[in-house]
């Protein structure tokens, strides 16, 4: 097994995380204070600024330690060798040629990792033992080792705090608060950040799979849903959405099922049908919200290709009402106005000349 190369850093990281947590608490309380002591706002402002400056300093130092440097090629070789040992049992190939007799193959089948998918994922350059802690140092490991699994927030403290506040308001927290963890949706061996994937089709495929794995399967749904809760038939409840399944290939469930407020990333406040977006024009309009959502990572690349609005979306999808060409629209509107004015003018001249002729005939 590889030795943990950044062991001393973990303590620093722990302190850093605490500092960040304090910063967030401080910020929240300072927001409350601000509203409480409006009359004394100069003092409050100064104090807040001082707090923020200190917290920022702490945070900057903390972030420097919290983000591990990328592994060197030697590290990577070590990690690869170590991971190969784990995969000698925990992979499809390993299952066929188990290094040890008497293993429970049926159980093992639930804990397989696909090497290519894992390598391509966000955690793909990490040793298995980074998260699968102490109990896994020995190989083969004891069955109880599972208890030593690291939690996501051990590394992702800042993110976890932000996400938890959002998650607490979500329909998942409402119905499943205790049993629902990050890993319920996010398989750490598979996930890649949308900003890294970039290709909207890939982002959509990855993210919708998470939702549909449970919400499109009675078996998976029943595993974690509260008792007596029946899975709503996913196609039926979305039948109002034209070309439903095609929509799901082009956009994510969370495009409609999360609120829009969060600027940093999409919110983890998954909303049920009562709160979810149902207005088509939110996406289907010139000022489409897709720019702030699925296409947020590409929004800077918008080039108004061929003069089209939102042409960055157009490279993947034609979105009625959003991906349109203002120049062509103006020509069409101009021709329409000209035709209407033309016939009105022609009609008026006809009326006038007819009257003139009539009065001439009377004379």
């Amino acid at each position, binding site marked *: 097994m590889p030795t943990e190369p950044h062991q001393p850093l973990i303590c620093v990281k722990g302190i850093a995380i605490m500092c960040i947590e304090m910063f967030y608490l401080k910020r929240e309380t300072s927001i409350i204070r601000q509203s409480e002591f409006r009359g004394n706002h100069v003092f409050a402002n100064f104090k807040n600024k001082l707090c923020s400056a200190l917290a920022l300093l702490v945070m900057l130092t903390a972030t420097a330690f919290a983000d591990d440097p990328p592994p060197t090629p030697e590290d990577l070789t070590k990690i690869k060798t170590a991971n190969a040992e784990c995969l000698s049992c925990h992979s499809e190939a390993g299952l066929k040629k188990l290094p040890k007799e008497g293993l429970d193959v049926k159980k093992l089948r639930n804990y397989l990792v696909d090497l290519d998918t894992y390598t391509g994922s966000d955690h793909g350059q990490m040793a298995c033992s980074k998260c699968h802690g102490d109990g896994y140092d020995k190989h083969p490991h004891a069955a109880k080792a599972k208890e030593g699994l690291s939690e996501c927030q051990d590394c992702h403290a800042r993110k976890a705090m932000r996400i938890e506040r959002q998650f607490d308001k979500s329909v998942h927290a409402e119905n499943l608060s205790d049993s629902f963890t990050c890993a319920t949706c996010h398989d750490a061996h598979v996930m890649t950040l949308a900003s890294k994937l970039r290709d909207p089709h890939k982002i959509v495929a990855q993210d919708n799979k998470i939702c549909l794995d449970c919400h499109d399967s009675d078996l998976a749904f029943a595993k974690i849903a509260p008792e007596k809760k029946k899975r709503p038939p996913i196609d039926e409840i979305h039948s109002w959405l*034209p070309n439903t399944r095609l929509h799901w290939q082009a956009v994510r469930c969370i495009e409609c099922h999360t609120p829009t407020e969060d600027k940093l990333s999409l919110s983890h406040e998954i909303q049920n049908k009562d709160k979810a977006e149902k207005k088509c024009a939110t996406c289907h309009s010139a000022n489409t919200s897709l720019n702030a959502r699925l296409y947020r990572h590409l929004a800077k690349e918008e080039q108004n290709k061929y003069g089209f609005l939102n042409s960055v979306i157009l490279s993947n999808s*034609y979105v009625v009402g959003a991906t349109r060409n203002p120049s062509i629209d103006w020509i069409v509107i101009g021709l329409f106005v000209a035709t209407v004015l033309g016939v009105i003018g022609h009609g008026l001249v006809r009326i006038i000349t007819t009257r003139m002729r009539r009065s001439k005939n009377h004379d």
Partner: protein
Amino acid sequence: MTNRVFMLPLWIRLWHWSNALAIIVLAVTGVSLHFSNPELPLVEFSLAARIHNVAGVCLAGLYVVFVVGNIVTGNWWQYVPKPPGIIGRCLTQMQYYGSGIFKGEKEPFPPTPEVNFNALQAVTYWSIMYLVLPVVIATGLIFLYPQFAPDRLFGLDGLLPIAMLHYLGAAVIVLFAVSHIYLGTMGPKVSSLFKMMITGWYEH
């Protein structure tokens, strides 16, 4: 004393008015969809989409009625622009619309049961009915089933050319409809041609 001559059988009149209704509905909902704006909705998007789909399928059905009816009754011949001297006849017609009508001149080619349309009408109707409308209907049907659209084209979504043809074709039809309604007032009386389109009888 006015002369009456029977010009249009019932099926053509029924087809014409259902077609007109479908096109008006499609134009209004189509504008709502293309220029969709949450602050300024003409028809709310999902409602417009539903109506547009239903009316679009109706229009496609009516087009089949039009083609089959024309073949069965031989009415298709009316639409064929007949070459010898057609350009001259078109110019004469344009001259009438452009100046003759203001001077109180008689219509150069009034409709008869044998020749319903003047040359300009024949050319326009033929182009609209056999070129533009089929394109709009075909692209509309692909829009209903976008999985049949090409996947990608010139680095952009394959639905783009379909959408553009649909939009531009529809725009041509709307422009045609505006002029068509206005030219309907060009009979012996302002109301004559509208009356004919309802009763089938041309009074002159």
